[in-house]
Every structure is written in structure tokens, then in C-alpha cells.
């Protein structure tokens, strides 16, 4: 069964204090690993897709990396507006597999000014 575990569940940072969020996964053939940001009362907002181990993608203060067992979302010098829940999801790539995403429970990030 495909599974995603995110840690920590919650993280409080001071503005400018860099850190990383972890996403560990088990999947029957990885088609893609996705990172989303979700603000209260809104739907998830797409951030990144990673397809193979060693791949990295960056967007502003965020950088996502991927290994064969986990992904990290690195946040450099965060600002209060980066406060949100960050969701990780995997899509299996086995033949005949569904296009569905399997999500973790998310990491709630709070950045204090």
C-alpha cells in the first residue's frame, strides 16, 4: 500500500530561521512526488513536482529535493507569509495504476515576525 509520512506535524520558526520539512514515502513505482501549500479555508496550491532521485527544484525561498525514500522541502530565510500547511503527495507509476495522489497529513508551518 502506498504511504506518505510527513514530519514534523508542526513547526514554529522565527523570521529568517531556515529549516527543512521531511516527507518519507513508500510507493509501488514512483511516477511523481508533489508538494502543495494549503492556506486555511483554501484548496491546496501546487508548488513542485519531482520525478527521480537527485532531482531538485526551487521557487523563491523554497527548494524541494528527492531521494529514493524521502523528499525534503527546504525553506530559506522564511517570512511570515510562508506560514501555511505544506502537503506532500505521491503518484504511483505501476502499469494500470490510478492517477490518484496519496497525501501525507501535512506539516503546519508558522513563521513569527
Amino acid at each position: 500500500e502506498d504511504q506518505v509520512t510527513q514530519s514534523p506535524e508542526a513547526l514554529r520558526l522565527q523570521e529568517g530561521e531556515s529549516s527543512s520539512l521531511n516527507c518519507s514515502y513508500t510507493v509501488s513505482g514512483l511516477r511523481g512526488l508533489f508538494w502543495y501549500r494549503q492556506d486555511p479555508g483554501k484548496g491546496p496550491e501546487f508548488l513542485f513536482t519531482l520525478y527521480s532521485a537527485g532531482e531538485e527544484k526551487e521557487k523563491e525561498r523554497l527548494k524541494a529535493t528527492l531521494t529514493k525514500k524521502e523528499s525534503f522541502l527546504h525553506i530559506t530565510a522564511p517570512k511570515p507569509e510562508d506560514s501555511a500547511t505544506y502537503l506532500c503527495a505521491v503518484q504511483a507509476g505501476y502499469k494500470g495504476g490510478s492517477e490518484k495522489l496519496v497525501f501525507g497529513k501535512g506539516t503546519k508551518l508558522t513563521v513569527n515576525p
Partner: protein
Amino acid sequence: GAGVSQSPRYKVAKRGQDVALRCDPISGHVSLFWYQQALGQGPEFLTYFQNEAQLDKSGLPSDRFFAERPEGSVSTLKIQRTQQEDSAVYLCASSFPRFGPPYNEQFFGPGTRLTVL
């Protein structure tokens, strides 16, 4: 519009009532997905369509849940005889533009918050 839209945004139902939730995907997207998100949890897959074909409904929790996409665009998720445990946010997402690169990122709507009293 440019994004996925859902209606209503909020729905309050009495236990036992039937509800219908609507999703308008991004124009030209082939795949459409429904997810259920409980408070403090990540979204959980319910079902998905490729055009009008329902290819996977393994996540539907019971036969009270039914989804359709008759013309391959707008979709409706129907819940019959609602129960308190059905209270959640129902998210719709779409992906795979019909024309252009085969990006499989899923783009989500704002969700419908269902409260069953």
C-alpha cells in the same frame, strides 16, 4: 475562469438529507478528481474520471457516495442519506490538458465544506 471552481462553498445538511456538490474543472483538462479532507488531515482520494469515464472509484467510502461527469467536463459528487461522519471538506482537482505537454500536476479548487447536523 482560469482555475477549478466548486459550488456551493459551504453546505449544511440535516442527517438523512441528500446533497450534490459541483465541480467545474480547468477548461480542457481531461482528468478530474474528488478528494475528502477531514480537519487536520491530508486529502484522501475518492474517485477520478478521464473524460466521462470513471476509472477509479476505490476511495468512495460507501454506496451512498456517487459521482458523475456525463459530458467530460463538469462533475457532480452526490451523497445520499448524509451521516455526521460525512462532514468534511470535499476537494475537486483537474489535470492533463487536452492540448499541450502532458503535465500531470493536479490543480485544486477551493473545496466545499459540508457540515451534517
